[in-house]
């Protein structure tokens, strides 16, 4: 294996995925280098969410390979739970656990999966909550929080176990417009601190500012990818131009 490949944190090749007769991913290749932030753009239904779920082993793939570091995590013999414990995922609809306090939401995986003592997990979670600006909400239940606050808790929950890769699936799409900023600001901070992030997003200005690279997905295939500034300012493919014209209009 070459040094270039070794530096990749996540590398997927030839990913195929169908739901019944509908082929959602038609052979997708994507790589994610260490500390790289990649924005996944494309219309609704282009396969962004499915790709993120396949990479996070939350959806079985029909064909292709996924490497996390040097390990082929698409091998059926691999223990999926162990792999998922090394990844962080945040969803459009937050999916916080309503029966647990904010603090317990953040510490659950540390305590149950990583077998960290409760006190240690809670100290760490308190730090994270302070960092996302929600130290005073630790004892509250999620239904007392605004959408933006819930999504920030979801991010704290995802990073509590120091994941190697953060998969963000349109995490601002379900938020009221005035709450989008606080969540994007947090992602920007994580990126500047060196997190490795693959994010599906409709926020083109944010992708241009924060992402190192942009991948444009259309109808289950990657049409164009490259440095964010060049893809977003100077797209080479007609389909990319048409998409960008629609979303920035």
């Amino acid at each position: 294996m070459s040094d270039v490949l070794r530096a990749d944190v996540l590398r997927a090749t030839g990913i195929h995925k169908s739901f019944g007769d509908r082929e959602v991913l038609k052979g997708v290749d994507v790589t994610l280098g260490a500390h790289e932030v990649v924005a996944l753009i494309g219309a609704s239904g282009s396969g962004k969410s499915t790709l993120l779920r396949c990479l996070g082993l939350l959806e079985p793939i029909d064909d292709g390979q996924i490497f996390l570091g040097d390990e082929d995590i698409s091998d059926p013999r691999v223990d999926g739970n162990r792999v998922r414990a090394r990844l962080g995922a945040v969803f459009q609809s937050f999916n916080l656990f309503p029966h647990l306090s904010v603090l317990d939401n953040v510490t659950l995986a540390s305590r149950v999966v990583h077998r960290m003592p409760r006190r240690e997990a809670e100290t760490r979670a308190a730090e994270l909550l302070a960092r996302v600006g929600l130290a005073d909400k630790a004892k509250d239940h999620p239904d007392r929080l605004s959408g933006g606050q819930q999504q920030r808790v979801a991010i704290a929950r995802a990073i509590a176990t120091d994941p190697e890769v953060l998969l963000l699936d349109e995490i601002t799409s379900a938020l009221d417009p005035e709450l989008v900023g606080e969540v994007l600001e947090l992602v920007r901070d994580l990126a500047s601190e060196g997190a490795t992030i693959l994010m599906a997003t409709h926020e083109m200005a944010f992708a241009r500012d924060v992402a190192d690279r942009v991948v444009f997905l259309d109808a289950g295939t990657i049409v164009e990818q490259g440095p964010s500034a060049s893809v977003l300012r100077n797209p080479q493919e007609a389909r990319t131009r048409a998409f960008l014209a629609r979303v920035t209009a």
Partner: protein
Amino acid sequence: MLIAILSTAAFAVIVWATVINTEGWAKVQQGFFDPATALEALPKVWDGFLINLTVLGISIFTVGAVALLIALLRTLRGPVFFPVRAVAAGYTDLFRGLPFIIVLYLVGFGLPTIVGERIDELFLGILAVTLTYSAYVAEVIRAGIESVHPSQRLAARALGLNHVQTLRRVVLPQALRKMTPALMNDFISMQKDVGLISIIAGLDAIARAKGVVATTYNFTPYVVAGILFILLAIPTIRLTDWYTARLREREQSGSVL
């Protein structure tokens, strides 16, 4: 409030006057509500009632364990587990369809006959109640588990929790809140259905009442046993009403649970 009190009082007077003046009331009173017979029957019926309570108390745990097991078997995914799911589904179909009295006959009389020796009646009663009620409760638990949104399971899996951890930490705690009213209704049914073990057990409240009825030729002991069962059920009924109302209130105020 005042109108309600006046109306209730007026209604009570009318009912009382009507009943008292009905021809045959004296006979009803003597046959069903005779104080002397009630006093004579009460200690015996109470002794028997303790047996019903024992069966109920133990059955709560056996039904809970068996029902949870069946419900979890029915939620197993994948073609490998098809036979397990089929057996669990067959069990719930069978025992929800089968009249409880037939289960009692088969277990209470059939089983000792097949085995060829005497089996403790308490054990047989608990077995019959458990077989039947596990089927109902398993369905309630399964419905509760399925009512938890799939995105919750997804979030738990994304954190690396395995199937059992996901069930224990995320799915079941949420399911339990949703299924509590239905579980309590099944519990109320169970509280009175433990009375049916008098068919196989000669020592429970109803069997003891029957014994007194046979000697006094007065039906008051049945009423005494009935009152004991009602007194047992009322707290659960009120609690269920209160809890259901509270859940509805919370849902309407917009919180998730």
